[in-house]
């Protein structure tokens, strides 16, 4: 083993050596620097591997062979090794990245970089407070130097401000050290730890030392100086400043906090949370990419700080959690800063230039996911463990605040990403420097590797070893293949997985799996119509399906949550692909993540901190034991799931997301994705049953929510001019029915919900494909611009016709089965009033469905549509499959439902439906689908023959051959009655569709934004102001914390 001190020795030595190199030998100097950094990195990595494997023990190194304070005392353990690796690797990559700048400025700059990395390493290694100060000063000077690397004129000012503030910090630190030595007689951290400081007595000394380090971590709001550096410094350096400096300083602070004793932890928590929330809110308003990343960095450090405050409850998992967040942040932020160096413009939308290189887009997406804590990155595992620990020890407020902050962060990071994917930029594409891209790719690889490592360390399954996820990720490699090849692989994968796993499913899972996997495969048939390579489609699609596949089979709460997150990520990228998808994808991801956080909180609450938590038995157990938290678990999970079912109040993401999605994506996100929420709700009510908060039965609340969704979704659908939006609102309504049925908590109600799962999948997918096909041909989604397409697109017409008959519940098609079950279900329920809403919403379905078919296929054909062709055959094929499926399901509903019926019976211990032959008898009524179909069919044919017997000489006429009060129509557009089709309805019940919910969520985001705007004014950009802020911060914290304690 090479001693860790060589990291410092090599760094320092090479820095001196550089002085001897001739100043015109820049290439040689650079090689030397890189070599030194590589050696340093290798040493750190070597230690990391060895320590992780347990082949060596943590080592303490004493220079000069004596005890401190007369010698430098270093310590290397697992945490140190990890951090050293990160710091040195960052330094190494940064050196490559900044090659041009370094060569321009010469060997001086290179030695400063080496000193910087060396000092950061020292900060991590040292166990001595005074050395801490020494390294600290070195960092300050090196930072000041490196800031000047930038070509930005503001960098000088920023560096100066930094030096001013740093000197204040240094003074605080020095005074603190003197006091500490005075009080303790030793500067060794371990000695200090032996006699923990309380908040009493000598605490001022500790306070000053800690505050110095805290300030170095840029706590909100005393951090204006740091942001100026982020904004103006060379991005290569910003990466070091954010990733390495932050990490090192944090670790130093952590060392001291550990030494100072648990009494200091609440202070850390408060400062950390305050910083996390404050910086995130501020970041919302940023329009400069680097400043936004700066705020995000500060926020992330604040988060880790808050985690440091939780080290008392995290126990052994502390390093896993804190390290996970810290290292992910370091990698992601370094990566992002390096990407920002590739982007010529400084606006957020300027990142759109990245679209020229899919690898960079993938890197950007990965880094964003890392920062937000999405799987499969370490932050995800850390988040999971942290929440469980917090819930286990009752720290609900901290939980809530961290999740809120994370949601805000997700908000601006995904908005940023959305800009990059969808916006146009004015900047010219400069061509990306290959070496810089390579550096970014290195960070990317590191990020994924860390995800793998963390997954492996985690108590829970490693997501990167799960077959569905790997299958989805396989498509990254397959991207160069043509779309049809990938499509075949995807379809085979979905069907194969279903086939392979079929034996393990219970009937409920079977239904959902059939809808999600086989159904997904059917929809994918439509994707054959796309030509070319269709980059960026299959990875998210298959991620979504992977998530769904895993969701169905989830055994533990972790499995479930991880699957949920995976499918959320996949579907987000899918939705973002839509033409005007950017704002809708953003609101989708925000609602989904918000929902996911609630689910996380719910699981954490349910598990009371104990992992692993077996999902079904665990939830039933807490429900049976009537744990006081049980109803809250129910509520959290229910709301979480309802973000996916888009129940009213949480629905505003849906219409846009579904309407703007691509033709084959709309049915996926509508027909399939929404069912994930329903599956969650199913599990929830199956395991937890009725829960009461106070005297309110939560399932009754669900009944109401379902009923209101069904009604308002329908009413809003009536007034849409956009065909896809109409269908999207109709989904809200249909899912409302399903939630309603589920929440009735009786046998038939659940069957009803399942029937809707199947039915809604079939007809909504069919309708979305049909409308998508029409959109493909007409180039518009506005229904009043279409008309008369029946003869041009007969197949599409048939599928819409069958779809709307089925959906409206008119016999003999399958929608009627849903209505019949519905009546039987409500008869068995004690509730009365919510039924009224459902009764109203039933016929409303007719209105929007008729409008859909009338305004598109009937009425007047427009000039420019006269030569339209039928929709692409690949879109028609799945539609025809759906038509057949609908007819089959209408005649033989028993095929799909009989088994499930028996399965549900095991929950309720009853069997209200009797399946005899093809007829079904319930407690209240009976229904014979075959008889209905036959009777109607026979009558229909008889009447048709009757009509034909009265003469077959009908003259086929054209569209203007109508009686027009003895006039003739002017033009098709003026004759097609379509716009504002239900004007009288709007006059009568238009008040129902006032956008109250949209206004509410709008107000929430507006408030956040204006808060950010107001707070931003604290950052004047003036160095003196910053200095004063720092001092005021210290004094204020002192007064609040210590004053309060005495």
């Amino acid at each position, binding site marked *: 083993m090479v001693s860790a001190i060589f990291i410092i020795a090599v760094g320092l030595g090479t820095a001196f050596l550089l002085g001897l190199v001739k100043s015109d030998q820049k290439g040689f100097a650079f090689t030397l620097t890189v070599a030194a950094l590589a050696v340093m990195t290798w040493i750190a990595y070597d230690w990391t591997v060895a320590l992780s494997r347990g082949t060596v023990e943590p080592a303490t190194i004493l220079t000069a062979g004596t005890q401190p304070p007369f010698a430098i005392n270093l310590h290397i353990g697992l945490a140190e090794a990890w951090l050293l690796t990160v710091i040195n690797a960052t330094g190494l990559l940064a050196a490559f990245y900044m090659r041009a700048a370094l060569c321009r400025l010469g060997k001086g700059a290179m030695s400063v970089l080496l000193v910087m990395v060396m000092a950061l390493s020292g900060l991590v290694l040292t166990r001595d407070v005074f050395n801490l100060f020494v390294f600290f000063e070195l960092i300050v000077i090196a930072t000041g130097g490196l800031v000047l690397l930038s070509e930005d004129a503001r960098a000088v000012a920023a560096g100066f401000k930094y030096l001013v503030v740093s000197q204040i910090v240094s003074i605080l630190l020095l005074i603190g050290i003197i006091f500490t030595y005075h009080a303790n007689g030793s500067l060794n951290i371990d000695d200090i730890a032996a006699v923990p400081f309380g908040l009493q007595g000598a605490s001022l000394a500790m306070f000053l030392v800690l505050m110095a380090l805290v300030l170095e971590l840029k706590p909100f709001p005393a951090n204006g100086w740091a942001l100026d550096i982020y904004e103006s410094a060379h991005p290569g350096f910003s990466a070091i400043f954010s990733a390495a400096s932050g990490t090192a300083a944090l670790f130093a602070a952590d060392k001291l906090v550990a030494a100072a004793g648990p009494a200091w932890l609440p202070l850390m928590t408060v400062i950390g949370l305050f910083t996390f929330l404050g910086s995130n809110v501020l970041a919302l308003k940023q329009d400069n990419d680097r400043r936004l990343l700066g705020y995000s960095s500060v926020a992330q450090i604040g988060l880790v700080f808050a985690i440091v405050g939780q080290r008392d409850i995290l126990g052994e998992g502390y390093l896993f959690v804190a390290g996970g967040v810290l290292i992910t942040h370091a990698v992601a932020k370094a990566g992002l800063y390096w990407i920002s160096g590739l982007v010529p413009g400084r606006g957020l939308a300027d990142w759109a230039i990245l679209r020229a290189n899919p690898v960079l887009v993938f890197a950007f997406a990965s880094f964003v996911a890392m920062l937000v804590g999405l799987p499969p990155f370490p932050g995800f595992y850390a988040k999971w463990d942290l929440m469980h620990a917090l819930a286990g020890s009752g720290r609900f407020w901290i939980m809530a605040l961290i999740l809120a902050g994370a949601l805000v962060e997700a908000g601006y990071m995904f908005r940023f990403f959305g800009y990059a994917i969808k916006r146009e930029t004015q900047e010219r594409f400069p061509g990306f420097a290959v070496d810089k891209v390579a550096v970014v790719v290195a960070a990317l690889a590191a990020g994924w590797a860390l995800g793998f490592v963390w997954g492996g360390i985690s108590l829970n399954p490693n997501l990167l070893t799960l077959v569905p996820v790997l299958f989805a990720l396989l498509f990254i490699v397959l991207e160069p293949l043509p779309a049809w090849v990938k499509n075949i692989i995807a379809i085979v994968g979905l069907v194969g997985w279903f086939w392979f796993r079929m034996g393990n499913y219970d009937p409920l899972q079977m239904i959902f799996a059939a809808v999600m996997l086989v159904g997904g495969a059917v929809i994918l048939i439509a994707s054959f119509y796309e030509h070319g390579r269709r980059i960026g489609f299959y990875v998210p699609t298959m991620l979504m399906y992977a998530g769904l596949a895993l969701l169905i089979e989830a055994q533990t709460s972790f499995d479930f949550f991880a699957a949920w997150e995976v499918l959320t990520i996949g579907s987000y990228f899918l939705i973002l692909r839509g033409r005007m998808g950017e704002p809708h994808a953003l609101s989708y991801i925000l609602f989904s993540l918000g929902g996911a956080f609630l689910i996380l909180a719910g699981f954490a609450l349910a598990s009371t901190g104990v992992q692993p938590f077996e999902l079904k038995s665990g939830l039933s157990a807490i429900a049976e034991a009537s744990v006081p938290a049980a109803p809250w678990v129910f509520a959290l999970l229910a709301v979480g799931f309802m973000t996916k079912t888009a129940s009213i109040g949480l629905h505003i993401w849906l219409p846009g997301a579904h309407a703007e999605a691509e033709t084959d994506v709309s049915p996926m996100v509508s027909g399939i994705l929404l069912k994930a929420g329903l599956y969650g709700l199913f599990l929830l009510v199956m395991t937890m049953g009725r829960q009461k908060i106070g005297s309110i039965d939560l399932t009754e609340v669900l009944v109401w929510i379902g009923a209101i969704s069904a009604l308002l979704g329908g009413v809003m659908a009536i007034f849409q001019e956009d065909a896809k939006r109409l269908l999207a609102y109709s989904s809200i309504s249909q899912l409302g029915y399903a939630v309603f049925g589920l929440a009735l908590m009786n046998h038939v109600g659940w069957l009803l919900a399942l029937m809707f799962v199947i039915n809604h999948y079939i007809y909504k997918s069919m309708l979305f494909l049909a409308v998508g096909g029409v959109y493909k041909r007409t180039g*518009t989604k506005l229904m009043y611009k279409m008309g008369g397409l029946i003869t041009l697109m007969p197949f599409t017409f048939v599928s819409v016709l069958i779809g709307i008959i089925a959906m409206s519940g008119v016999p003999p098609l399958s929608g009627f089965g849903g209505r019949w079950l519905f009546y039987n279900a409500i008869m068995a329920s004690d509730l009365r009033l919510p039924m009224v809403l459902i009764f109203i919403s039933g016929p409303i379905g007719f209105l929007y469905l008729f409008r859909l078919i009338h305004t598109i296929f009937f009425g007047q054909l427009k000039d*420019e549509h*006269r030569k339209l062709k039928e929709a692409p055959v690949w879109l028609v094929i799945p539609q025809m499959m759906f038509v057949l499926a609908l007819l089959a399901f209408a005649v033989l509903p028993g095929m799909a439902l009989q088994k499930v019926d028996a399965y549900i019976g095991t929950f309720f211990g009853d069997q209200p439906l009797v399946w005899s032959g093809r007829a079904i008898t319930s407690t209240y009524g009976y229904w014979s689908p075959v008889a209905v179909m036959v009777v109607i069919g026979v009558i229909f044919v008889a009447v048709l023959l009757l009509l034909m017997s009265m003469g077959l000489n009908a003259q*086929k006429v054209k569209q203007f051959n109508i009686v027009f009060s003895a006039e*003739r129509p002017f033009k098709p557009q003026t004759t097609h009655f379509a716009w504002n089709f239900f004007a009288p309805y709007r006059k009568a019940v238009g008040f129902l569709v006032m956008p109250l919910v949209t206004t509410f969520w709008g107000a929430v985001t507006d408030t956040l934004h204006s808060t950010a705007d107001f707070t931003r004014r604290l950052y004047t950009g003036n160095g003196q102001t910053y200095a004063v802020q720092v001092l005021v911060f210290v004094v204020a914290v002192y007064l609040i914390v210590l004053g309060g304690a005495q």
Partner: protein
Amino acid sequence: MKDMDKSFRKDTETEFPLREEMRPRTVTAPDGQVIEIDPLRDYFCEEAPKVHRKSYSAIVEGFYNWARANSLWILGFGTGCGAIEMRPLMTPRFDAYRYGIQWRPTPRQANLLIISGYLSVKTLKRAIRAYEQMQQPKFVVGLGSCTINGGMYWDSYNTIKRLDDYLPVDLYIAGCMPRPEALLAGLMELKKIIRRGEAEGANKYAENFDWYKANQKSVIKDWDMPDYSW
């Protein structure tokens, strides 16, 4: 008596241009293809009217004629001042309903077109359209002198003089204006004609279609519709 300027010659040269919305035009389809639209051809059926035979069996035809006679549905279209004389037929005083007569608002469902009085050229166009949109067998009654020979509008530049030049008339009711009683009597007479199977105006129209069209087009200069308005 008014003197006539023997030297006056009406303008037979000037053609009236086809109206803008009926002119052929080109539009760009959503897929970028430029397509030609000829509204008269694309939006209207161009078939000529057909002669519809009577039923093979005389008894059946007689039975049908009885039903047609006793179920006269009049198109609610008042072309001239005589329309006001039709309204009293619905009142208790005359009560035409008892004869199976009623008014329908759409030509598709009406069998009887009553040209109620003078017919200006402008209205003639509408009357032709309404007539052609009715289903066979269909009947036309000319009400008042103006439909017979121009009546008091005999010298008007803008009203036709002989309705049967333009539409096949089954029955004229003379008078200026005929009172409702006369109208009722006329309808009873029409019933008899129908019963006798002589009300075959629609077939006559189809057989002499070219002659009727030529007459119609000679007075309607802005002929901007298909020859037969289905």
